[in-house]
Structures are given as C-alpha cells and as structure tokens.
C-alpha cells in the first residue's frame, strides 16, 4: 500500500516532506486537501492530527504529523535507497548528530526568523490584512543575525552538517524558496557562501521537483 500524504504542495511544511519523498524516490499518494473549506478542522482530520494542520503521513496503521518527524521517519525507513541524508551508516553517529544539530537550528532559529516576514508579505494580504512593516523590519534584523552565522558556517563547510548534503539542508528548501520569491532576495545573494549553498541545494533534481510543486498553476 502506498504512503498517503495529506497536504498542499504550496505549503512550506508539506513541501518539506515532498523534498524528502523526491530525494528517496518513494511511491506515495498526495491526498487532495482543501484548507479554504476548513477541511483541517473536520473531525476526521483532527483524528489524524489533533493540531489540525498539514501535513499528515499515513503508512498503513501508522499516522504521523509534524513535518520534521515525518522526514526523519521516511529517511530511516528508506535508508537503503537514495542518498544517506541522515548519515545512518555504521560509525557515522557524530555526522548524524551534526545533521541533528543543524535540523534543530533550522527549526529553532532559521524558520522562526523567516516566518513572520513571509507571513506578512505572502499570507496576510490573502486574509485582507495590510502587511505590518514593523514586524517585517524587526524580522529582517533578527534574520540577518541568523544568516551571518550561516555565512560563517558555510565558509568552513560545503553544506550545513559537513561536506555532504543532508536532511539539515533539505529542511531549508521550502522556506528559502519563498524568500527567493520575496523582495528580500539580497539577504541570501549578498552572502557569497550562503548564496553558493543555496544555488547548490536548490538545483538538485529532487529540489527542482519541489520548485515545480510549489509553483501555482497557470490560470
């Protein structure tokens, strides 16, 4: 039975899981989901994810929510196919821990810094609100500090966890894709090592599929 993924490709958290699925070439079924009609608040969905948010993965009788828990599960289950993005092979525990460190940094520093900026710019207008410039300005100040740490790290290491592409880099794809579609592209492009890293990770075949999935259909 194929995996079922409930979610919307345009959503950053769903796209995070898609990136992992494409890297590992996993057979799956994307279950169409309609946020606009409140499908995420329906009892049948809340039974799967009590937080009422996407994505949710169903693998036979296992149901999982939280995109970063889903990607970790998929990489462990499919560790024999595709690249070793969690460094699970024997003796690589320290590398695995570095992947763990930078996935935590993405989760605790990078995404919380980008979320307010991207929310105000992309999503507030859809809810009829005017973007809050103060939130955006404060957000940019915080985010620049985080990016300075990344610039320093990536001047010593080709990818975040070491000289290998890993889940830590992958987790950054979807948020950064939105950033590159915003007026603040220069935050990335003005930092040579972050820029080079971005160009490298976003040009992988699986990443290009994510870009396509995150592109709204032509009307």
């Amino acid at each position: 039975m194929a995996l079922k993924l409930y979610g919307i490709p345009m959503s950053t958290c769903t796209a995070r899981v898609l990136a992992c699925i494409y890297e590992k070439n996993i057979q799956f079924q994307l279950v169409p989901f309609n946020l606009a009609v409140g499908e995420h608040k329906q009892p049948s969905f809340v039974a799967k994810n009590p937080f009422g948010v996407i994505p949710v993965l169903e693998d036979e009788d296992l149901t999982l929510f939280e995109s970063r828990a889903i990607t970790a599960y998929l990489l462990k289950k499919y560790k024999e196919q595709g690249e070793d993005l969690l460094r699970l092979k024997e003796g690589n525990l320290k590398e695995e821990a570095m992947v763990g460190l930078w996935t935590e940094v993405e989760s605790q520093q990078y995404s919380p810094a980008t979320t307010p900026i991207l929310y105000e710019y992309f999503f507030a207008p859809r809810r009829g609100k005017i973007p809050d410039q103060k939130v955006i300005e404060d957000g940019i100040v915080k985010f620049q500090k985080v990016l300075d740490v990344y610039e320093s790290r990536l001047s010593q290491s080709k990818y975040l966890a070491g000289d290998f592409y890993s889940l830590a880099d992958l987790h950054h794809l979807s948020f950064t894709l939105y950033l590159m579609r915003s007026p603040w592209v220069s935050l990335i492009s003005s930092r040579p090592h972050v820029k080079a890293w971005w160009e490298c990770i976003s040009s992988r075949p699986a990443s290009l599929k994510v870009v396509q999935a995150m592109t709204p259909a032509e009307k």
Partner: protein
Amino acid sequence: MVVKVIGPPNASSCRKVLVCLMEKEVEFEIIPIDLFKGEQKSPEFLKLQPFGVVPVIQDGDYTLYESRAIMRYYSEKYKSQGTDLLGKTLEEKGLVEQWLETEGQNYHPPIFNLHLQFHHRLGLPIDDKIVKESEEKLEKVLDIYEERLSKSKYLAGEFFSLADLSHIPLTHYLVTDIGKAYMIRNRKHVSVWWDDITSRASWKKVLQL
C-alpha cells in the same frame, strides 16, 4: 572522559540535557555560565555556540549544541545502557519524533514566553497581552495532550521517552515560579502524567544541582 555541559545548571534547556545524561547513565561535569553577566556572548563561547545560547556540550574534541540534538545523540550513542528514550521499532521512533517536534514547535514557544514574562531575575514589567496570548495557546496544546494521554500512558506510547523528558524543565517553572499549576492540575491525565515523569530519580537529582 567526562562530558562537559556548558551552561547554568538551572537553565531549562540545560536541565533537559542533564536529565537525559542521567537517564543514560553518562557521567558529566557542569561548566557554569552566568547568563546575566552575558558570558554566553563572549567570543570564546560564540566559537562553541555561534547563536550565543546554552547549552553546549564538549565530549573530548567533539562539540554539539541545541538541547534536542544533544539528547538525540546521547540517546542513540548509549542506546544499550540506561533508559531507552528513543523507542524500539521504526514506528515507535516515529512517534517519539512526532511528540518531540510537537514540544519544540507548539509547547515550547508559548511556555517559554510565560517563563520570560515571570522571570524574577529579569525584572521586566509583565506584558499582559503576551501573557494572555501565551496562556491561550498553551491551554489549547494542553487540551490536545489531555486527549492523547487519556489513551496512552506517555506521549509516544506506553514508554517514557525524550518526548516526555523534553517537557519537564519549563513545565516545572509553569507550576512553580509562573504560578500556573492549575493548567496542569485541571487536566486529569496531564496531571497524572506530570506526577509520573517528575517522580523519576533523574529529575529529582537535577533539581539538586
């Protein structure tokens, strides 16, 4: 060689790591840092942890930061000793990750806000708006936990795991300094779970440090 844990022993993020190391029967040494003197922003510290937050561990010449990454590393490294904090099967591990992510994404932000608001040493005026919003968010998360824990002894299943452990230090502040024990006590299953996880010897020892 003994693991060095750099940070104040009573900081919530450090306590998580200390409880984990005790559960895994790993010897450690605390190198205290004074956050109020800004020692976490010194150039020496920033070389170890460029974001200037605690904890950091040094294990010989290996350095690691982010409390959850540290816990995962030691839980895996010492999986054959002490308490199994990760789960045995792939499915159990998936559920541990799900609830550990839930703690990081949904529980931590509002409870950490409350912790900062009521921190007596920070001495800042309390922002009622932040307190109200954080409480409301936390209440919703605790409702979900109440439902979950009515079906399962611990968050990830019938075994204590990193997911439960990660909640202990900040929830301790919630029921003490922050003065909102009712949020736990008003929920029957959360209350039972709370008493269970805080009765563990590892937590009792960490409180003495």
